[in-house]
């Protein structure tokens, strides 16, 4: 028996030795080759494995209300508002621009809107930028300047769709064009997330009114005022965006102004397999890999030391939803016990190798003042994040369950991270007498269980943060699709709706903070740590620091500002 172990050890050792030997044959770049060129260069092809590298485009038609729209068309179609990338950390500013949706007020910039003001509490007037053009599109339209009618058309088109989400822009009554460059939004109700919901959100792309007669679902008809156009689409393989040399925007670098975009084309590479993606990165077939899991980072740093890195917190919470409509989970003590029984610090330290935060949901640290650090939270909230199986058992006893209880927990077999994590959590729970039965489900069945509310008592899932207030609404308001814990508190609902109407941001911040602390304390979910993600890119990718989104799932403006240092790339042997 021991000999078997010895043989195994020898084999593993031999493999490692062989690996090291062969790896040492790998070409290495001399540091001098990596000297950056002083001036931005135009041209070239940018190959990106985006954060959604495993997914093809779901739809090109805004009327389909598909969440991924801005990701696929956001480099072609522009919005009224977007993120001010000059405030990015890589350019000396305070913002990371790695959140999935939220753009803080001080990082906001008018994209197609030049300025805006409130005429009265329910009337928002936006003035459009001048000199912005839709390029010529044979069969669709001639080159012409953007005007207010296009904005009106875009909003009406999207809101009239049978698949529209009524609550997204429900506070908007109507949009009208006052003159060729003035758009007026008449609101039914004030909503302090108007900048997200009307400006930089999922469903605010500005289309030309000529789209009224065209097939909006054909990728060939996708056009906009943006820095790129869709030039090629091979589903499950690549999406190519070619530069629009008539684009209106420019970037100032070292006191000089440059027309955008720099590169000739951007390729979104669709790669379903992680090992393949990493190989492509290593060999320079990918210039940027927007998501690299932390497990792969040390090895990548070893084989490819030239890569540049950025670390960012995943803008999504990992949670176990506990159905508060099913005893004994209706008892707050039981839910708190389930939280306290999980050793979250150990998960951070050992399972994620230290690359995670214990608490980052429902507010994200990047939300700025909306986020209250754990250390400043009330004691009863902090208690939920301290491992104490004894106390957990006590709480269960208090709740009348001294011998524990059984429950089913559903997980999607598609997320390997959660499939791996779950046995660990189950073993923590076993120590306090809670016996959990793991039920893996296939992706669509898993999602469907949630939307039809037929899911099990416990349901482990990921969900995006969106914005500070919408995060509370989405996850905790009665009847919401993404509220699988079935949390229902009419008072809480009312306070959320009230918070949307607050005009003074300080008030909103205070409301969000107090509601967040309250809901974490009530523990409708088991709050699990949020891991860090890494973005990797080759050094010839310039004017870039790992920014991921400049609006709701929208990377377009970021790619427009990247230039490829061809000289460096050539010296490094990749061109």
């Amino acid at each position, binding site marked *: 028996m021991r000999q078997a172990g010895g043989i*195994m*050890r020898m084999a*593993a050792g031999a493999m*490692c030795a062989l*690996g090291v030997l062969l790896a040492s044959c790998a070409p290495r770049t001399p540091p001098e080759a990596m000297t950056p060129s002083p001036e931005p260069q135009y041209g070239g092809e940018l190959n990106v494995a985006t954060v959604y590298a495993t997914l093809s485009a779901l739809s090109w038609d805004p009327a389909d209300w598909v969440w991924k729209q801005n990701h696929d068309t956001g480099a072609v179609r522009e919005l009224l508002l977007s993120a001010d990338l000059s405030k990015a950390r890589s350019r000396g500013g305070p913002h990371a621009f790695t959140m999935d949706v939220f753009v803080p007020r001080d990082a906001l910039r008018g994209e197609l809107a030049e300025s805006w003001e409130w005429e009265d509490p329910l009337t928002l007037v936006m003035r459009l930028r001048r000199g912005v053009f839709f390029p010529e599109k044979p069969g669709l339209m001639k080159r012409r300047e953007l005007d207010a009618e296009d904005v009106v058309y875009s909003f009406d088109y999207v809101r009239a769709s049978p698949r529209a989400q009524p609550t997204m822009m429900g506070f908007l009554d109507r949009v009208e064009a006052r003159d060729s460059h003035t758009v007026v939004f008449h609101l039914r109700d004030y909503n302090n997330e108007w900048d997200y919901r009307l400006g930089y959100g999922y469903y605010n792309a500005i289309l030309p009114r000529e789209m009224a007669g065209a097939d909006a679902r054909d990728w060939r008809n996708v056009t906009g005022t943006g820095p790129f156009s869709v030039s090629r689409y091979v589903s499950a393989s690549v999406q190519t965006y070619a530069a629009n040399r008539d684009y209106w925007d420019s970037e100032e670098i070292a006191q000089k102004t440059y027309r955008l975009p720099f590169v000739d084309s951007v390729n979104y590479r669709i790669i379903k397999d992680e090992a393949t993606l990493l190989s492509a990165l290593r060999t320079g077939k990918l210039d940027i890999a927007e998501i690299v899991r932390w497990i792969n980072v040390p090895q990548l740093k070893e084989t490819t030391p030239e890569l540049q890195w950025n670390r960012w917190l995943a803008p999504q919470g990992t949670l176990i939803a506990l159905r508060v409509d099913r005893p004994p989970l209706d008892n707050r003590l039981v839910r708190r016990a389930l939280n306290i029984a999980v050793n979250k610090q150990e998960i951070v330290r050992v399972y994620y190798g230290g690359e995670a935060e214990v608490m980052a949901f429902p507010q994200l640290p990047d939300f700025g003042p909306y986020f209250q650090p754990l250390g400043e939270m009330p004691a009863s909230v902090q208690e939920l994040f301290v491992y104490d199986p004894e106390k957990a058992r006590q709480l269960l006893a208090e709740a009348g369950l001294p011998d524990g209880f059984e429950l089913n927990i559903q997980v999607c077999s598609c997320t390997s991270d959660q*499939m791996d994590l779950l046995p660990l959590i*189950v*073993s923590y729970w076993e120590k306090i007498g809670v016996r959990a039965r793991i039920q*893996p489900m*296939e992706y669509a069945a898993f999602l469907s269980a949630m939307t039809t509310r037929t899911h099990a008592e416990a349901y482990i899932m990921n969900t995006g943060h969106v914005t500070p207030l919408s995060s509370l609404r989405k996850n905790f308001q009665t009847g919401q699709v993404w509220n699988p814990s079935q949390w229902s508190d009419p008072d809480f609902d009312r306070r959320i709706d009230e918070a949307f109407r607050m005009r003074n941001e300080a008030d909103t911040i205070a409301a969000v903070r107090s509601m967040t602390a309250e809901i974490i304390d009530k523990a409708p979910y088991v709050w699990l740590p949020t891991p860090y993600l890494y973005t990797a890119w080759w050094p010839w990718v310039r004017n870039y620091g790992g920014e991921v989104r400049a609006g709701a799932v929208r990377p377009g403006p970021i790619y427009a500002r990247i230039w490829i240092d061809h000289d460096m790339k050539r010296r490094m042997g990749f061109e």
Partner: protein
Amino acid sequence: MSITTTPATSPTSPRPVAAFIGRLIRTKPLGAVGGAVFLLFLFCGVFADLLAPYDLNDTDMARRLVGPGAAHLFGTDHLGRDVFSRILIGGQVSMIVAVSAATFATLISILIGVSSGYFGGPYDMVTQRAVDAWMTFPDLVLLIVVIAIIGPGMGQIVLVLGLLYGIGGSRIVRSAVIAMRSSMYVTAARSSGASDLYILWRHILPNIMPVVLVLFTTRVGAVILAEAGLSFLGLGVPPPAPTWGGMLSGSGRTYMYLGPWLALAPGLCLSVVVYAINVFGDALRDLLDPRMRGAR
């Protein structure tokens, strides 16, 4: 009046079995080794619970990704679980899935193949068209759709793989039955008024046993590989039950650098068992019926 007959190559009576094994060892040593290896793994699988030094889900984050050594024969995985124990239990799961699916498949093959081949006529035609329809689709494609319908799970995988290989293998059984149907013995039995059931039981079944046996052995190997492929696509036997395929395609691939033993152990076991069983099946086929060498 009964006519009993045992064709010369049937291994169904006791004394020829011993002689058969002797012949196997003498003339097909590789095949014999293959068979022995497979039996060894089967044995380990059956007694896995006794042999495993640690519990299957004994997580200990302090000992994660430890290399093979005295305390842990095959090292530990990313959750600190003993890989050797997981290999043993995984072997048990893989063996159960493989043997049950192969048995189920063989039974289906016999059922369809014998009935179709023996009775012939319109029943045969319809059945063969149905089998045709089934076989037009690539294995994995069918599996994906069916698993999506019935969900992942050990029982479901056995059912699906059994059905898949069973229907596919029925063709082979059917051609063997057709060959048997027109043999001397059967014609004689029929003309003396023996019932269909009797003929099936006494003549057909014993004579197709060689085919069936070889079919069974190849199916075991095929199922193990198919389950590995399904695990890769995320549709295999779900945790906490470990399978070799699952371990190889999951943590084996993720931790390829940090812990190569996570892939080496299940990968080797998988390949060795499939290899052994294939080699054994080959030897069996060569020995039992020289006429059968062309069959798959």
